C-alpha cells in the first residue's frame, strides 16, 4: 500500500502511492474534513428516509414509514380531486340537453376531451383510434350515417346499441337472399351490377338493367326506390361513395348473398349517462355531425337515461 508513497521533490507534497508506468505519481491533495462530514450527513439523511418513507421489503410486505406515504394512495387522492373538480361540469352535462351543451363552449370542450378518452377506452377497439372504422365497422368521421348523424340520433345509437338485445336498440335484418335461395347466383350478380351502377361505378350495363327489376322487387322496400337508403331501418344509402363492406362486385354480391348486420353494444348498460352524452358530443365533433332536424325537439334530461 504505502510502498509507492514518497515526497514529491518539486512540490514537497506527499504522493498517494498510486504509480502508473513506473514513474507517474499522484500528489496527495486531501479533501477538506467538512467534505467528509457532508458524506456522513448524506448517510444520516438516507436513514431518515428509511424511517419516514416506505423502504425495506419484509417477508409479507414492506416497512411503511412513519408518514405512511403511498404513491398509490396519492394517485387515488389525485383522481378524487380531479373528479370533484369535474363534478360541476358533469352535473351540468347531466341536466342540459345535448344541443345546449353543444352551444356552451366550455362544456362542449370538456365533453370532447372526456369523450375522446372514453372513445379510446371503449370504442376504438372496433371503430379504430381515429374513428376511421374498417370493413364492417363504420367510419365515424364521414358524413354518411346508417342510423342518423344529429346529436339525438347519435346518442340513441350509442346508448342502446345496434342489434344489442336492448329493447330500445336499433334492430333490423337484411335478408340472406342467396343463402335462403330467394335469388339465384345470376340474379345476385345482376342486382349487384345495378346497385353499383347507382354510385356510377363501372358495371355491365345489360346486367344492371336486369338487376333494376330485381332491386325494385326485393330491395327498394328498405333501401328506397332510388337506393337512397332509410335511416329509420339502418338501410344504407347505396348511391354514395361510402361502402361499409366494400364496393367491389364480389363484396356487393356477398352482401346480397348473406345479408349484413353488424352489432354494437348498448353503452348505457355499461357507462353512466354523462359518459354516453360526452361520447355523443365527441363523435358529433369528428366532422360528420349533422344539425338537428328542425322538427326534432331536444329531449328532456330524463329521456336520456336508460330505461
Amino acid at each position: 500500500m504505502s510502498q509507492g508513497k514518497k515526497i514529491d521533490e518539486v512540490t514537497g507534497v506527499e504522493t498517494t502511492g498510486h504509480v502508473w508506468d513506473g514513474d507517474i505519481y499522484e500528489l496527495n491533495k486531501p479533501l477538506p474534513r467538512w467534505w467528509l462530514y457532508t458524506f456522513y450527513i448524506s448517510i444520516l439523511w438516507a436513514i431518515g428516509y428509511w424511517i419516514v418513507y416506505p423502504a425495506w421489503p419484509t417477508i409479507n410486505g414492506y416497512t411503511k414509514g412513519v408518514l405512511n406515504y403511498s404513491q398509490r394512495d396519492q394517485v387515488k387522492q389525485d383522481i378524487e380531486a380531479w373528479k370533484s373538480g369535474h363534478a360541476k361540469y358533469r352535473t351540468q352535462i347531466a341536466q342540459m340537453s345535448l344541443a345546449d351543451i353543444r352551444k356552451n363552449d366550455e362544456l362542449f370542450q370538456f365533453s370532447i376531451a372526456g369523450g375522446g378518452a372514453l372513445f379510446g377506452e371503449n370504442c376504438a377497439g372496433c371503430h379504430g383510434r381515429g374513428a376511421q372504422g374498417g370493413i364492417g365497422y363504420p367510419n365515424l368521421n364521414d358524413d354518411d350515417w346508417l342510423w342518423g348523424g344529429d346529436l339525438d340520433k347519435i346518442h340513441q345509437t350509442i346508448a342502446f346499441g345496434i342489434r344489442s338485445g336492448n329493447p330500445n336498440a336499433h334492430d333490423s335484418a337484411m335478408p340472406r337472399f342467396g343463402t335462403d335461395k330467394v335469388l339465384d347466383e345470376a340474379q345476385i350478380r345482376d342486382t349487384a351490377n345495378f346497385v353499383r351502377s347507382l354510385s356510377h361505378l363501372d358495371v355491365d350495363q345489360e346486367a344492371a338493367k336486369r338487376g333494376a327489376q330485381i332491386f325494385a322487387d326485393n330491395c327498394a322496400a328498405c333501401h328506397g326506390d332510388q337506393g337512397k337508403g332509410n335511416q329509420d331501418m339502418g338501410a344504407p344509402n347505396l348511391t354514395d361513395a361510402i361502402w361499409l363492406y366494400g364496393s367491389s362486385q364480389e363484396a356487393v354480391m356477398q352482401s346480397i348473398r348473406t345479408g349484413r348486420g353488424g352489432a354494437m353494444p348498448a353503452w348505457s348498460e355499461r357507462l353512466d349517462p354523462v359518459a354516453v352524452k360526452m361520447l355523443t358530443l365527441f363523435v358529433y365533433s369528428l366532422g360528420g355531425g349533422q344539425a338537428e332536424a328542425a322538427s326534432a325537439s331536444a329531449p328532456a334530461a330524463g329521456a336520456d337515461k336508460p330505461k
Partner: protein
Amino acid sequence: MNTMDRPNKFLIGGGDEGRPTPPPRQSDYVPRTKIYPKRARGTFRGIKWIVMAVTLAIYYVVPWLRWNRGEGLPDQAILFDFANQRLLFGPIEIWAQEFYYVTGLLVLGALALFLVTSVAGRMWCGYACPQTVWTDLMIAIERFWQGDRNAQLRLDSQPWSFEKIWKKSITHLSWLAIAVATGGALVFYFGDAPTLAIELVHGTAPTVAYFFLGLFTLTTYLLGGLAREQVCIYMCPWPRIQGAMVDRDSLLISYRELRGEPRGAHKTGTTWEGRGDCIDCKACVAVCPMGIDIRNGSQLECIQCALCVDACNEIMDRVGRPRELIAYTTIGNLSNATSSPREGWRIIRPRTILYTVMITLVASLMGWSLLNRADFEFSVIQDRNPFFVVLSDGGLRNGYMIKIANKFEGVRHFKLRFKGPADLQPKFVEFDGTDPTIEVNPSEVRAVKVFLLLPGAQRKELRSDAEPVTIELQDVESGQTASRATIFRSPS
C-alpha cells in the same frame, strides 16, 4: 519464523537498509484553517465597495420595479411566473417553449466571462460573483462586531467569556438577518413582490415561498458566512477552467518576483541596493480572503480580488519604494525586471477578437429574433388518424388542429384564410359558418379544429396525394398576418 521477520507496523523503516524513510502518514482529510482577513484600504477596495453596493442594490430593488401590462396581468417588471410557465421581462414575455432565449442569455454570459477572463483574469470572481459579494459583506459585519484581524485572533484565543459569547452571537445573528433578507428578496422574483411581502409577514404566503426563503437563508448563511473561501476552492468549477482561458497577455494579479526578491526586513535609512523591494511584512497575506501568499505565484485559490495590491501599495508608499510590487500584470512582463507591469499589454488579439465576434453574433441573433417575434403565434397540426375522410359524394375531407397563442396584453380577434387546390371549404367544429372570428384571451392558447372539404366533383383537380395548402391567420385589429404551410391528403 521468528518475530523479527514479521512486518512491524510500529517500526517505520526500521532496519531496512538502503530505503528512504517513509514520511509520517499524512491524513486523507485536512482540517480547515480559519482565515482572518485584515481590512485593506485603497483603490481596489474602493471599487469593490462600489460593486458590492451596486450589485446588492440591483438584487434587492429589481423585484419592486413595476411595468403596466394591462388589466388582469401582473405588473411586476421582472417576474419568473412559473405557475403560468412564462418569464416576464418588461415588455417581453417569454413562454416555456421559447426557453431558448434564456439559453441564449446563458451563452452570452459564458462568452462574456471568457472575454473578461482572457483580458483581465478572474474579474468575475474578484468583484462580481455573488459568493464574493456576500462573503465580503459577511466579513465586513464580522469585523464590525469583532474588530479587525488582530482583535479577532485575540478573541478566538481567549477562553469563553461573556464578551466572546456576546460578540460571536451578535455576529451570527447579523449573518442570519442578512441571509433571511437574501432568501426573502429571492422569492419576490417569483411572485408579486408587494403582495408576497405582506403575505410573508402575515404568515399567509404559499408554503413554497417559505421553503425557498428558508433554503436561501440557509445557503446564504452557510456559503457566505461559514464556508466562504471553501466554496471557491472546493465547490466551484471555474478555478479549474480559468487555466485554459488566460494567456501571456491576460492581466493577472501577480507578485513581481524579479523586483521583489531577495526579500527581507528593511531598516529605515539603509540602502535598497542589492536586495528586492519586498520587505516580507506579509501585509499581502494578512488581507487575503483566500488565505494564500500571492508571492508563491499563480494559484487555483486566488480569486484576483486585488486586495493584496492595495495592501502592498500602502506599504510601498510607507517605505518610499514605487507602487505595484504586486500588480495587475501579464505573464510576459513577469520575466522582465525593468518593464512596467502592463508594458506591451495587448487587449486586441485573436482570442479576444473571437470572443467579441461570438458575443456580437449571439447578441444580434437574439436581438433580431426578439424584435421580429410576433406577439401571437400559431401552429397547424394535420390530423394523422385518419389522414383523410371520404365523404358520401366522393369528396374528401382533411382535419387540422390550429393553435393560436396570444402573447399580447389584451383580447385579440383572428380570421383564418385557406389557400389550396380547388375550392376547399372550411368547416369548424365550434363555430358556425365558414369565416368565424376567433377570439383569444390574453396569455392564452386557443385550439381551433377545422375541416377542409373538397367536393367530389373537384377530386380530379388534385395533382398529388399531398397537395400544398397555406393557412393564413390575420389579426383583425392590427392586420398582422402569419401563414403556415401544410398539405391536403388524398388516397393515392
